[in-house]
């Protein structure tokens, strides 16, 4: 057979052979490919598979609770819900955003902005798009998740700070916020960690932070959690007991509000340096920061001319006015330049270095000794004595008594108080000190510029007779094994003053309040309040700003009242600074109210209500701006 059939048969046979070869080759190639993927590359694909089906969810650690000195909670935690988008497995991010916006009623653009902001972060990290979701939003998302509509959206319960209402203690407590990039790098924090950004929250951030936990869950392709693989519980941060007495804090803030003043106040226990109350007004609402502050509020707080974010008690610097006379008197007595009976005759002023320096009493105080010079705040006496002491020794004693420099309070960003010296002036301006400048310094004007906390520190030192402890806010710490005092408590510093110095100063300050002095509004019968008013001139300091469209009220002087009580064995000392209060006597009623509250508590009486003294300015609604939000 040689016809076509046999040719056909041969061709068929040869092509079938070729087919066999092709089949064997193809299957062998497939086997090699599977060997490469499954055996050679196995580890890599195992890792990818695990990423595929495991999701790590952070369990946020609650921050430690802050208590006042009587264990009343000042800052607690509440559960907030955040809604985040997981981009890692999202197949259609655009659709997720649309659906989420639809479900929660949040503008799509806002969600997109949040995603944009976190664009560069690794995709496996969830991006929080709604910080403090309402229950309605949470339930809307959860319902849709069950229907597999929003598989790439997770709802997390996040413990969130709850601060006292109306911004009470806002500056001392501080606020929290997402760690900045610098903080993440230097502090070894995880991105997105919430850290203290100011106040106690920042000063004791390490203690308060706690350790985040983690939950590893198995999810399926539509993001449904199928099983929990591992759970490491979060551990709460340490609880702190502060030295603050909530009653005094509230009394002080209430008095400020009642009188319509802004300003600052510090109340200390002079024996230990414990801060009983620390006020700065206007305040802000730290709750706005707790779940991430929105841009508009942040800009408003930062551009407000009243600077609500500034903690005036430790960051505001003002000239101390007559409260500075405590330094002049102490320096003169301790240096042996005068004795308490040293007398100057005031004729309404005196001439030094060819220039006449006025006393505030034009007719003059007549002959006054130290005690009465303090009582009447006679400028002529202190010009004379200050001139005798000289600027170097004034500076030395301001530093020794804790007025110059920083007090070392355990709060971030305290600014230095300035009490000038010839070296300081030389370094700063290159000019030499003129003796005439000392005369202004002697009554707390000129280049002297101090923070309220440092002035409180000075009066605590005066109350103690010299030694004083740096102000502090931390009383005890609880790391889960009971309360213990902080590890390092600074020892008292400063020289012990001579008894006759202490007696003269205490008598003088007592007379200011209980005699014919300017502090009469702080008088509390039976409690021997001692203190000193002061006026910080605004025009001389800020005269240049007159053109900047400031109202008349902005140019009124600030009022100081520095005090301690009782005169013998003082238990409480401090300072009240009433911004634009015109005179120290306007600050005194605030101090009086806090002191009354203090004594009422000590004696077990009901807490007093604030009574505005006759003639005090009526509270103006506009002045409360910024406070309480």
């Amino acid at each position, binding site marked *: 057979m040689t016809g076509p059939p046999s040719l056909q048969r041969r061709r068929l046979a040869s*092509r079938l052979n070729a087919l066999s070869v092709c089949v064997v080759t193809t299957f062998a190639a497939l086997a090699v490919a599977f060997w490469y993927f499954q055996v050679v590359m196995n580890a890599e694909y195992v890792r990818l598979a695990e990423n595929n089906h495991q999701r790590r969810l952070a369990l946020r650690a609650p921050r430690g609770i802050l208590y006042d000195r009587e264990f009343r909670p000042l800052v607690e935690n509440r559960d907030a819900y955040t809604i985040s988008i997981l981009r890692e497995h999202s197949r259609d991010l655009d659709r997720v955003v649309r659906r989420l916006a639809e479900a929660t009623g949040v503008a799509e653009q806002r969600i997109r902005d949040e995603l944009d902001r976190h664009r560069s972060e690794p995709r496996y990290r969830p991006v929080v798009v709604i910080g403090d979701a309402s229950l309605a939003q949470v339930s809307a998302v959860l319902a849709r998740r069950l229907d597999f509509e929003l598989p790439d959206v997770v709802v997390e319960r996040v413990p969130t700070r709850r601060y006292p209402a109306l911004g009470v203690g806002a500056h001392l407590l501080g606020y929290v916020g997402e760690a900045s990039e610098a903080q993440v790098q230097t502090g070894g924090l995880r991105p997105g960690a919430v850290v203290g950004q100011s106040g106690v929250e920042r000063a004791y951030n390490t203690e308060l932070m706690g350790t985040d936990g983690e939950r590893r869950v198995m999810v399926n392709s539509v993001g449904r959690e199928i099983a929990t693989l591992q759970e490491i519980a979060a551990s709460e941060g340490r609880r702190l007991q502060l030295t603050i007495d909530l009653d005094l804090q509230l009394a002080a803030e209430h008095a400020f509000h009642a009188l319509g003043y802004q300003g600052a106040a510090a109340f200390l226990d002079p024996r230990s340096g414990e801060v009983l109350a620390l006020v700065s007004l206007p305040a802000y609402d730290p709750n706005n920061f707790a779940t991430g502050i929105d841009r508009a509020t942040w800009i408003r707080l930062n551009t407000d001319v009243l600077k609500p974010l500034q903690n005036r008690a430790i960051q505001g610097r003002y000239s101390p006015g007559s409260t500075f006379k405590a330094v002049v008197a102490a320096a003169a007595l301790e240096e042996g330049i005068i004795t308490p009976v040293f007398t100057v005759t005031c004729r309404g002023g005196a001439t030094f270095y060819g220039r006449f320096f006025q006393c505030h009493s034009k007719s003059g105080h007549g002959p006054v000794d130290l005690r009465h010079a303090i009582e009447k705040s006679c400028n002529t006496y202190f010009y004379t004595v200050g001139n005798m002491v000289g600027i170097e020794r004034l500076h030395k004693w301001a530093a020794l008594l804790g007025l110059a420099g920083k007090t070392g309070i355990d709060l971030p960003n305290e600014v230095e108080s300035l009490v000038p010296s010839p070296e300081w002036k030389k370094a700063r301006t290159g000019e030499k000190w003129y003796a005439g400048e000392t005369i202004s310094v002697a009554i707390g004007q000129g280049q002297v510029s101090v923070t309220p906390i440092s002035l409180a520190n000075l009066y605590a030192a005066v109350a103690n007779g010299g030694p004083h402890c740096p102000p502090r806010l931390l009383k005890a710490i609880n790391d889960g094994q009971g309360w213990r005092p902080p590890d390092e408590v600074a020892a008292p510093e400063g020289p012990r003053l001579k008894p006759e110095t202490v007696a003269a100063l205490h008598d003088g300050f007592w007379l200011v309040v209980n005699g014919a002095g300017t502090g009469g509004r702080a008088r509390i019968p039976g409690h021997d309040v001692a203190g000193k008013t002061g006026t910080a001139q605004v025009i001389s300091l800020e005269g240049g700003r007159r053109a900047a469209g400031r109202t008349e009220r902005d140019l009124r002087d600030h009022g100081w009242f520095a005090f301690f009580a009782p005169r013998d064995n003082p238990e409480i000392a401090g300072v009240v600074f009433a911004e634009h209060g015109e005179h120290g006597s306007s600050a005194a009623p605030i101090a009086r109210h806090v002191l009354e509250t203090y004594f009422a508590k000590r004696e077990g009486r009901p807490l007093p209500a604030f009574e505005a003294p006759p003639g005090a300015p009526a509270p103006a609604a506009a002045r409360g701006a910024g406070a309480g939000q």
Partner: protein
Amino acid sequence: MFDRRLCAHIDWLMLGAVYLLCAIGVVMIASATADPSRATASQLPATQVYALVLGTGALLVCLVIDYRSFGERAHLIYGGLVLLLVYVLEFGSVRGGGRRWIALPWFNLQPSEFMKIGLALVLARLFSETRHQAPSGRELAIAGALTAVPVVLVARQPDFGTAVTIASVVLGVAILAGMRLKLLGLLLAAALLTAPAAWTFALQDYQRGRILSFVNPSRDPLGAGYQQIQARITVGSGGLWGKGFRKGTQGQLSFLPVAHNDFIFSVLAEEQGFVGVLVVLALYAFVVLRAVDTARRARDRLGALLVVGVLSSFLFQVVYNVSMSAGLAPVKGLTLPLMSYGGSSLIATLAGVGLILNVRMRRFTN
């Protein structure tokens, strides 16, 4: 009509390999469709066993009746199937984006699966009558037309994968029937030249997307490339020995779409590892080579070409599906014959196996 002595010539080895693959398929379907969060067994494996019973019936019918009788009536079978395809386009039930099924009381018939056999029959008969060493141009033209009709009908369902599979039949049969390789080369060149036009006019957007993302899966890792990446992860994470029955996370957590259907081989690779892959590949290779051997021993040209026709679509689907399960080919809705879930596919494939056995069984008869 049926001689008992023929039983002695049944290829029991091939039949055993085929049923072993079916059994492995049922087990893998059971694993892929178990819902770990509900802990209830799926009824899909049972449905597959039911289809296996029906398929065995079809296999017996295709075995018992002499293939020459089928050959004589090839044009009728082919014509009937074309009518069914037309009917499906008009009245078929729609599922998963395609109009492919005819709902029958006892199962859903997918005529396109049976068209592979119908076309194999009609082409085998056509080329068996060739009088020359190579099929004439006229014969090739007729073969092309016979193929084009079902291909177009199926592609319009739309079911691109099955359409290509059906087209593979004509290629196999024509080449084995002695078609000149020069002509084949010309056809390939023409295909290459018209490819750009086809790309622009014949393909839908999603089809272009699939092909583009095959070339570069990371082009769109969350869209079209997703399945491909997931398939590769599924296979790769299986390792040498596999994760074990129902232990695979990829298939179990449905990172793979239609794991019990198009991606059944990926599930196998994940749970049974490279060893399981080798076993199944060897079984398929055995079935294919055994079929090639049958074609070689066939008593007549009709038998040989019929085996080649049935084998063409089977081989094409196996190779394509296995490649796709490892992310080596663009994702297309093509089942793995014998293993994938799907009644019509299983029944038609078993019917085809019946025809191959038929040819081998009757290799000595007159």
